[in-house]
C-alpha cells in the first residue's frame, strides 16, 4: 500500500488581483441599462408622475425625497444614474479574430498616448515644411499673436479622459512641451484646428465690480445703499447726499448705540478718508455679532455705498486702503484634546 505524502484536493487558487480591475462585458452593461430604464418607470409610478417624461432631474429629486440622507459628501448619498455614467469607460479587446491588433502602436502599451505624440509631431513637421516653403518664396511669415492669456491647455485628468488611458506626469508634461513648441512656430496657424482640441477657454476671473448708479428719493436727494459683514454681524447702510453728517443706527443715534469711541471712529473712517464728513447722512440697520463686529460691518457697508458718489480713482484709493475688502477673520473652532483653538492643556511633568 502506498502512503500519500501530500494531498491537495483544493485547486490552485488563482491570484484574484492579478487580472487587474474588473472588466465589464457588453452584455453586463446592456443588462444594467435595461434595469435602469425599468427602475426609472417604477420610480415615476411611485411618485405619481408620467413615466414617459421622467427626466434625470426628476429622478434625483425623487431619490432625495425617498432616501433622505444627512451625509456631507454628495457622492456618498444614494444616487440613481445611467450606467454609462456609473461604470467608467473601458477599452474593449484590441485585436481581431486572427490575433492581429488593430492599432499600429499596440505593442508599446500606451497606444493612444503615443499615437497622439506621433500625430502632433507630424503636424510640427508639416508646419516646419510650410515655413521653409514660405521662406523659399520670400513670403512674409504670419505673425498673428495667438491669445495665450484667455486659454489654457487641458489638464492631465481631462487628457486621461480623452484617451481612456492612464498617463504619468512625465508623459503629460512632455505632451504639453511639444504643443508649446508647435504653437511657438510662426506658421502654426495652419494647424489651428488641431491645437484647439487641446486648449480651453479660461473665463475672465476678474469680474469687474459694477458700481451702482445713484438713486433719487421723493425729495430729490441722491442716495445709495451698501451691505457689509464682519464676523457674524450683517449690516445695510443707506447714505444720503446733502446731509449734515447725522448717523442713525437701528433707529437710534450713533452716539447712543456706540458708547465707545473706537466704534464711532470705525464708522466715520470712510467719510474721513474721502474728506466728506459733514456732507452725507447715513441710516443703517445692523444685526448679529458683537460691538466691534457691528461697527466693522457698518464701516464696510458705508464704504460700499460711497462708491457711487465718488470718482474711480478714489474708489481705487479706498480699495487700497482696505475699506472695501471683507475681513475674512472668523472665530476659530475649538479642537479636541486642546482647551481652545490654539491653547493646549497644561502640561504636567508627572
Amino acid at each position, binding site marked *: 500500500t502506498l502512503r500519500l505524502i501530500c494531498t491537495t484536493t483544493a485547486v490552485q487558487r488563482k491570484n484574484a488581483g492579478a*487580472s487587474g480591475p474588473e472588466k465589464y462585458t457588453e452584455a453586463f452593461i446592456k443588462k444594467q441599462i435595461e434595469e435602469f430604464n425599468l427602475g426609472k418607470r417604477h420610480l415615476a409610478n411611485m411618485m405619481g408622475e408620467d413615466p414617459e417624461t421622467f427626466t434625470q432631474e426628476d429622478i434625483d429629486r425623487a431619490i432625495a425625497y425617498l432616501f433622505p440622507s444627512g451625509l456631507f459628501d454628495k457622492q456618498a448619498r444614494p444616487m440613481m444614474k445611467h450606467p454609462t455614467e456609473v461604470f467608467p469607460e473601458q477599452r474593449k479587446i484590441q*485585436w481581431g479574430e486572427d490575433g492581429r491588433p488593430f492599432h499600429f*502602436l499596440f*505593442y508599446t502599451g500606451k497606444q493612444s498616448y503615443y499615437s497622439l505624440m506621433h500625430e502632433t509631431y507630424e503636424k510640427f513637421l508639416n508646419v516646419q515644411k510650410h515655413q521653409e516653403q514660405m521662406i523659399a518664396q520670400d513670403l512674409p511669415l504670419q505673425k498673428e499673436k495667438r491669445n495665450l492669456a484667455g486659454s489654457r491647455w487641458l489638464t492631465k485628468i481631462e487628457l486621461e479622459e480623452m484617451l481612456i488611458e492612464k498617463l504619468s506626469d512625465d508623459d503629460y508634461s512632455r505632451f504639453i512641451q511639444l504643443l508649446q513648441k508647435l504653437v511657438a512656430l510662426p506658421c502654426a496657424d495652419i494647424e489651428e484646428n488641431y491645437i484647439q482640441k487641446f486648449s480651453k477657454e479660461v473665463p475672465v476671473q476678474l469680474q469687474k465690480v459694477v458700481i451702482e448708479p445713484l438713486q433719487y428719493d421723493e425729495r430729490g436727494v441722491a442716495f445709495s445703499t451698501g451691505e457689509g459683514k464682519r464676523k457674524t454681524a450683517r449690516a445695510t447702510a443707506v447714505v444720503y447726499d446733502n446731509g449734515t453728517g447725522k448717523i442713525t443706527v437701528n433707529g437710534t443715534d450713533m452716539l447712543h448705540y456706540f458708547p465707545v469711541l473706537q466704534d464711532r471712529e470705525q464708522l466715520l473712517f470712510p467719510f474721513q478718508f474721502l474728506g466728506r464728513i459733514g456732507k452725507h447722512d447715513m441710516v443703517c440697520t445692523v444685526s448679529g455679532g458683537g460691538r466691534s463686529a457691528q461697527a466693522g460691518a457698518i464701516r464696510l457697508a458705508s464704504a460700499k455705498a460711497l462708491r457711487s458718489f465718488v470718482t474711480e480713482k478714489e474708489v481705487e484709493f479706498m480699495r487700497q486702503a482696505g475699506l472695501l475688502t471683507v475681513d475674512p477673520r472668523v472665530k476659530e473652532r475649538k479642537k479636541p484634546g486642546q482647551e481652545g483653538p490654539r491653547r493646549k492643556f497644561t502640561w504636567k511633568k508627572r
Partner: protein
Amino acid sequence: DDKLLTEPLSHPDFFSVKELFTLKDLFDARVHLGHKKGCRHRFMEPYIFGCRLDQDIIDLDQTMQHLQLALNFTAHIAYRGGIILFVSRKRQFCHLIESTARACGEYAHTRYWQGGLLTNARVHFGPGVRLPDLVVFLSTLNNVFEPHVAIRDAAKMSIPTVGVVDTNCNPCLITYPIPGNDDSPAAMELYCKLFRMTIIRAKDKRRQSEAFEELR
C-alpha cells in the same frame, strides 16, 4: 492552403529580394560607415572591411548577403501573415519608423520599452494576446549605448530577430544581423524603404495566390 505555404519555401529567392537594392545604393546611403576604432565591438570584427583614419568601414559584400537573407526572411514571415514589430530607440528616426510601420500595416515600438512587454504580455495586455512573430531592430542599442532589452526578451520567447548592427553593437543574439550604419538619415531611410517594399510585395503576392487558388 498547404500548397500556398510550401511553394515559396522551395525557391531560394521567391520574392526576388535581390532586385530591391544594389551595392551602389548601399554605398550612396553611407551604409558602410562605422564608428571609430575605439568603439568597435569584438564580435563585429568579422564584418569589418578595414579601418581608415581611425574610422571602421563595414564590408558591403557581407552586408549584401546578410541583407538579402534578412529581407527574404521578412518577406516569408509577411507572406504567412505574421506580426512584425519594428524596434528602435533612436529619437531622430522614431517618426520615420512609425510611419513606415503604419504604411506596411505592421507594428512599431520606438518608445521607452517597459519591463515585461514580451515576457509578461498576459499581464500587460490581456489573456489572449498574440506576440510578434518577428522583431526588426533598426538600431540595436538604446539611449544609454547598451543592447536593447528586446533582443534578450525576443530570444527568451523564441521570437526570431532581424537587426541592423553597427560597429559598436553586439550581434550575438540576433538571428539575422545586418552589419551596417544605423546613425545617418540616408541609411535609415534606405532600410525603411527596403523593409516597406518587401513587406508590401510579400502581402500582395499572398493576396494574388489566394485569389488564384479561389478561382481554381
